[in-house]
């Protein structure tokens, strides 16, 4: 796949000629496009079955346009390993869109191993957008260890835009220091025999650190989901919330394990988890406006995953 097609699928083709937009495009283990902006260093090298990437943002640097990382595999069968190391200096600001594109996959493994360090007072957002094949022949295993320095803000969102999930096994763990803020959100719709596993852990170790873990999952047919959201508060005035919402239909199976651990009397963590079928009142409200049952269910799920 050439870079033009990759950017087109990711719907970011205007970025291709924009010198003011930092980007890196990978097809399997080949680097096919790269651009950077002042204050931002992107170093990458091809390794067997993947790429090793180092991203450094200088202190006091604000990257105006979102940085686009495109990870594509056009082959039906392949392994793609992404080793990524990101660190930001203090008081900087960066927003990264990771476009993971596997449109033809019948047996593709996409493995990500990330280490992220967000500097003191810095802001870092990471939006992961996936496009998969229709038959779900893919295994995605993103793993990340994140450290937030004092006053840092970190936000990540995982979303499947197109295609079937296949097998997804997310494993994120964050350490949040004093006054830092973390938000991790996952929105996924499973169908067929998709398998979704999410393990997200937030360690609120600094005074007044805050964290939110949100999972919104919709399951149909024979898909399954196992969600483990864990928040641990060990410092005074640390605050957190875990929110897991799963809707199931047909033979789908969902489990949610919110683990809340508070080791300081001045800290507070709340959680809510709901698993069930589509709410009858919502369904009948939409049907009483003339929507068929299928259309009403789709709209309710669209809302939940939005």
């Amino acid at each position, binding site marked *: 796949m050439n870079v033009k097609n990759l950017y087109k699928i990711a719907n970011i083709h205007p970025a291709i000629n924009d010198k003011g937009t930092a980007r890196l495009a990978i097809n399997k283990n080949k680097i096919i496009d790269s651009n950077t902006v002042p204050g931002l260093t992107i170093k990458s090298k091809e390794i067997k079955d993947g790429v090793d990437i180092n991203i450094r943002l200088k202190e006091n640097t604000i990257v105006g346009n979102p940085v686009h990382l495109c990870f594509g595999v056009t082959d039906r069968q392949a392994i793609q390993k992404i080793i990524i190391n990101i660190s930001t200096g203090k008081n900087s600001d960066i927003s990264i869109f990771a476009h993971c594109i596997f449109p033809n996959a019948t047996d593709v493994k996409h493995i990500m191993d990330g280490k992220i360090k967000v500097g003191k007072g810095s802001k870092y957002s990471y939006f992961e957008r996936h496009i998969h094949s229709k038959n779900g022949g893919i295994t995605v295993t993103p793993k990340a260890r994140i450290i937030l320095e004092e006053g840092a803000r970190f936000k990540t969102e995982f979303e499947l835009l197109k295609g079937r999930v296949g097998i997804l096994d997310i494993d994120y763990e964050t350490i949040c220091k004093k006054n830092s803020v973390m938000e991790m959100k996952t929105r996924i719709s499973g169908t067929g025999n998709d398998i979704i596993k999410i393990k997200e852990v937030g360690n609120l170790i600094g005074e007044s650190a805050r964290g939110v873990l949100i999972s919104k999952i919709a399951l149909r047919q024979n898909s399954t989901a196992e969600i483990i959201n864990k928040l641990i508060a060990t410092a005074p005035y640390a605050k957190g919330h875990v929110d897991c919402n799963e809707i199931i239909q047909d033979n789908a199976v969902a489990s949610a394990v919110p683990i809340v651990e508070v080791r300081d009397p001045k800290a507070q963590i709340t959680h809510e988890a709901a698993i069930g079928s589509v709410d*009858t009142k919502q369904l009948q409200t939409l049907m*009483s406006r*003339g929507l068929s049952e299928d259309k*009403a269910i789709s709209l309710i799920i669209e809302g939940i995953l*939005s």
Partner: protein
Amino acid sequence: MGILKIENLSLARNGNKILDNINIDFCKDRIYAVVGPNGAGKTTLGFVIMGIGDYKDFTGDILYKGKSVKNLNVYERAREGITLAWQDPARFDGLTVEKFIKSSAKDKTRKSVVDALEKVGMSPFEYLERAVDKTLSGGERKKIELASILVMKPELVVLDEPDSGIDIASLKNIFDSIRLLKSSGATVILITHSLEVLQQAEYAFLLCNGSIIQRGSIKEISGYFEGKCIPCDHKNLPEEMEP
């Protein structure tokens, strides 16, 4: 001209009659009220008309424009022109006000949504992008639900306790919308135990313990309602029915 005819409608649960031999003719372009105390069966009657919930095993019939809708499900009845607003409207996580209203609109433009929100007294640009979720009050959701009914352009509307959760300032918008529905050719059935809502209707039925025990003008029903039926533990029967 009749639009909805309820014939010998009875519904029982665990040996208790919830609705007992109801017979009503609703005419086109009129506003009706079904009044009565809590537990009288008013909401159940609305649900049976709409086909909602576990109320399909009734005896008797419901004729809409002369045809039985007994075997139609909720959305088939809605497509025929019947709709219902709930006493406590549903919450929809993540679904925006605009999408929610558009989903029932005949004209799916933003303009039609904006117009409908203005008609119920809501600032469109404050609400269009908000979700119909717990961040909205019950009264706000009530008005949004009414807006979704206005854009649907129905022919028969059941409004269950339309004033519930509505502040005094917004009540006028609700009443204006009820009249607007009528002027656009809809028949409106107000389910209420509020005298103020009752005053919006042209004709009313008093439902008590599952039976229509009085029918007549608003004056007749409100007098009866005020004087004898609150609290109605089914002892305060009309004089002619008292033992």
